């Protein structure tokens, strides 16, 4: 058999999707595909890392077990880092110095956590101090969960999407979490200043402390973390610090292989790099000055690349994606898409602020078309808005029509049903809590909520917590 060799470097979500797209087009028969993955696992869904943090198994987030590669005839090299690649020789070498031939290669090396310059982050021998973590891989969260215990003071440096998800995961494990954010607005890349205020309130109601406009200057502690020192005044005692202050594309191998890069590997509309036969997808690819780190654009890239590689549709072109992100934290509803601020004088801004409901919604409109949106507290309209953003259709004259969510959710919104088994609504639960049910067993006994499938117990605990916070706040004020 004389099939061309297709090497895929990296084994993250982009690779898993690319393999599925190739499979659908017969590409796994057309090519001898080899996948080089640094981690020992089959490909997994990185956005579900909190499942592993909550003591779940890697299986629960696995997209492709080892058996999948074998069954599909894909040569899988787990635990192998590609250290060198020669475009001219059409060969690559892994860390164990093994040499592999390829005809075509795809970079899907993703990105790594960016660790900011912080004094005292390293030990004398250059390794990270005990208690310093990043939130990126299964190994990262496995070591985090081994260390965390109830009441442990933890600092999460970076209040972006990933930082807030990590903070929530650690809080669920009982840690006493403080988010330290450099800017004055949490998730400042996705949310504007007003939305940031709503978001902050929602995050704080989960029992997470938030420090904004705070730079982290140094880590105190001999060999292990004891405290953070901030740029201005003050310090925070903590036994653990998790850095989630951004990611950086992994392009060292590309640079060493003379593949043109900027912030990431430069690709054209067919996802081909500056060197013929070498492609890049996902977080390590830069297309028309954009590097995408969310799942849907990466899926779209993989679909085009599979079309191009297999010849299923040689005319397929990737023309860029609209940005759409959501915060995946139970109890805090945030969605953001496109531009979040006005750019031109003619841009229209529609803002709806509902203080008591804790809901903030903002639309950015350019030339009668949706250019972006920020939704905090209630993102039900987002699924439809993102269609309008994508299709660039002319919006209805009454912009408020856009926020009428398409799906008629009976009872959701004003007074949602929390316990679906026993049909107990939020208002009934709040009344019971005010009447003295300050623990989960008491609340369940009185209202039956949480005694069916049990899936609402987290929300019940959250309601109790919210109430006690409210009382404490009132006492202080």
């Amino acid at each position, binding site marked *: 058999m004389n099939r061309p060799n297709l090497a895929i470097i990296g084994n993250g979500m982009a690779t898993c999707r690319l393999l599925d797209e190739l499979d659908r087009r017969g590409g796994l028969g057309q090519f001898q595909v080899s996948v080089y993955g640094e981690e020992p696992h089959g490909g997994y869904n990185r956005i579900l890392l909190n499942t592993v943090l909550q003591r779940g198994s890697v299986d629960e987030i696995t997209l492709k077990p080892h058996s999948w590669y074998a069954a599909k005839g894909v040569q899988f090299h787990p635990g192998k880092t590609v250290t060198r690649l020669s475009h001219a020789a059409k060969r690559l070498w892994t860390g164990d110095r093994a040499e592999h031939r390829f005809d075509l290669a795809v970079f899907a090396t993703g990105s790594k956590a960016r660790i900011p310059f912080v004094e005292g982050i390293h030990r004398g021998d250059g390794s990270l101090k005990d208690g310093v973590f990043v939130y990126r891989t299964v190994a990262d969260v496995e070591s985090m969960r081994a260390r965390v215990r109830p009441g442990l003071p933890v600092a999460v440096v970076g209040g972006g999407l990933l930082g807030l998800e990590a903070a929530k995961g650690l809080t669920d494990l009982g840690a006493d979490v403080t988010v330290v954010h450099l800017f004055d607005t949490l998730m400042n890349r996705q949310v504007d200043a007003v939305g940031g205020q709503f978001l902050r309130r929602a995050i704080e109601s989960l029992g997470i402390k938030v420090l904004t406009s705070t730079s982290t200057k140094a880590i105190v502690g001999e060999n292990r973390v004891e405290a953070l020192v901030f740029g201005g005044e003050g310090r925070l005692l903590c036994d653990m610090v998790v850095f989630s202050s951004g990611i950086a594309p992994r392009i060292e191998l590309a640079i060493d292989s003379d593949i043109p890069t900027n912030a990431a590997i430069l690709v054209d509309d067919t996802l081909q790099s500056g060197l013929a036969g070498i492609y890049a997808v996902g977080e390590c690819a830069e297309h028309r000055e954009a590097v995408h780190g969310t799942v849907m654009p990466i899926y779209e890239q993989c679909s085009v690349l599979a079309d191009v590689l297999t010849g299923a549709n040689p005319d397929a072109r990737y023309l860029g994606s609209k940005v759409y992100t959501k915060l995946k934290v139970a109890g805090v509803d945030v969605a953001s898409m496109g531009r979040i601020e006005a750019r031109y004088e003619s841009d229209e801004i529609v803002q709806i602020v509902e203080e008591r409901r804790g809901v903030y919604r903002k639309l950015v409109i350019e030339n009668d078309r949706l250019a972006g949106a920020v939704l905090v507290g209630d993102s039900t309209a987002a699924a439809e808005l993102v269609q309008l953003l994508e299709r660039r259709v002319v919006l209805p004259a009454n912009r408020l029509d856009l926020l009428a969510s398409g799906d008629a959710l009976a009872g959701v919104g004003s007074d949602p049903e929390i316990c679906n088994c026993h049909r107990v609504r939020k208002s009934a639960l709040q009344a019971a809590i005010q009447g003295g049910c300050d623990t989960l067993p008491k609340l369940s006994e009185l209202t039956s909520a949480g005694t069916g499938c049990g*899936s609402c117990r987290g929300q019940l605990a959250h309601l109790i917590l919210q109430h006690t916070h409210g009382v404490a706040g009132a006492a202080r004020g």
Partner: protein
Amino acid sequence: MNVPIPILNMSDRNAQTVKTHCPYCAYQCGILMPSGDENAVVGDSAFPVNNGQLCIKGWTSGELLGHSTRLTTPLIRTKSGQLAPTNWDEALGVIADRMQSLQTRYGSDSFGVFGSGALTNEKAYLLGKFARVALRTANIDYNGRYCMSSAAAGSNKAFGIDRGLPFPVSDIARASTILLVGANVADTLPPIMQWFEKQKEAGGRLIVADPRRTATARTADLHLPLIPGSDVAFANGLLFLALDEKVIDKNFIAERTVGFEAARNAALAYPPIVVERLTGLSEASLRTTVRWLASASSSMLLTGRGPEQQSKGVDGVLGFINLMLALGRVGQPASGYGCLTGQGNGQGGREHGQKADQLPGYRLIEVESDRISVAKVWGIDPTHLPRKGKSAFELLNSLGPDGGIRGLLVMGSNVAVASPDAGRIEERLKSLDFLVVCDSFLHETSESAHVILPTLQWAEEEGTMTNLEGRVIRRRRVKQAPTGPRGDIDILCELAKRLGSGDKFGFQSTQEVFEEFRRATAGGIADYSGITYERIDSEDGVFWPCTSEDHPGTPRLFAERFGHADGKARFHAVHYRPAGEQPDDAFPLYLTTGRYKEHYNSGAQTRLVGPLNATRPMPLAQIHPHLAKKLGASSGWRLTLETRRGRAEFSAEVTHDIRTDTVFVPFHWGGRHAVNRLTNPALDPTSRMPEFKVAAVRIAGVRPPEGRAP
């Protein structure tokens, strides 16, 4: 037999009233009809499926019997192209001659047969036998390919058996949560709503996923207006959330299924951020759906043509089955997955050999042991049985000189209206050397026919049907057959005799066909061998499988085991893929098709019924007010819809009940009003179902209603 059965428990005054069933959909309502000249119809309150209720089509079904346009004599096309009356002997003789001469010249497979989900079990069985034994052609298929084939393939893969509903419809009333996907039952199976109403009264919840806010969706607790063609993403997204919410039933999965890991791995690639974008549905509503399904003491998921009539219809069905298996609901009381069959005998019609790949009893024509079993009943050498032939659209698309199928016999189907890309199929029909149509009325397909044979109608002959529950019931002869038309069974036997196979078709009555048919199904998956006309009468129908006369029948499947050899259900890893055609800059909107409650299928019958036609004389194109405003149109304005296959003009119906990106048109009309001239014949790779539910369309013209200045 063939004598009206008096209803014993009725007063003498009604002694001539006969219990039978409605001629239309798969719900097969029990009706009572007088045997005299009057064609009044009332619902049979003693039949436990409809309990006396009927829809407007059922109430008016008697009108067809005495209709003035009914065909009473065979017609033959003259050299000048006119249809002229002829006698039966000549008509049958011409057909047999042409069949033989075309097959001699071009081979046995050059003559095709196209059947229907409207035919009784006896007719469907005999049509399959006629094709294989008398004509010896591989090319037989039927219009059920356009209806239930995706659900059938999905159920066979997952459960090892395909019976639309694995439980009686009355179980609906006992389900705590029901998710209906792409099924507008309030319009398509109206009397079924009584069970949904009972379900609601008992405190149950209903969720309806449909791009339109249909009459059914309006009764729901939650309506999910998903993007046409996004069902696989929807199903996988729900499974993702079921995993996320930790509500899957690990014990059920371990004990009763295989293949969960692969389905889970696939579903993990569908987080809400992806699914929201593909389906247009919010994470909140998806989560609510999963919670309602998982937390209820019993829950059902039922699909209609929405997810099934797609080029990925089978994967959609498998995705929904995955979800219900993962939740541990299949085979549990008032729970599980079911498909709502559409055509009158869509269920029986797909079990007994009018499908290209099938033999009676749900046997497969490419399985050697199945060939041997059936050949034995038919008294032929198994090697003489043809192999698998072409599926419905592929068969029709092969008509004419360049396709190789030179002649076609159509029984009970109006393919010129019901097929996708109908303009192309019309051309194909016209290019045939010889077309025979057996029907009671002229319609769009018979316009191209060389010979038309007038047939008896539903209330004029005997036969059994299998309703959407898998319940085998009897249609009875209520009326004296008029002189002129003949029954389909009679026609097939007469033709077989002329083709030299008379000894295999020596049936004197429908019941004789039924007796042979029972034997032919014995030992198959759809085993009818224990069902008799007498048992059907005394037991309100009998549910298959029923393997002997003392077997009670099987109202509920899967309580203990599934149809696969190991008794376990199968998960399947499925992935979303785009429809055969997605909206783009040139054709920016989705086109989807469906039904009105006043019409049935191609409308060949219902368009002839006064009250039905008066209420719905024409199809309307539903569009959202936002779209209408952009076009400068309002209700009643004429819209020219255009796809890559054709154009058609419709009046606009402006309504909030549809997505802003979607146009809906019902398909019951032919010619200039045929939306199927626009639909896309992209086929599902497994079921060969065409993609009636998704095409990319543009509005190429807008003009005010007739008689109004622009």
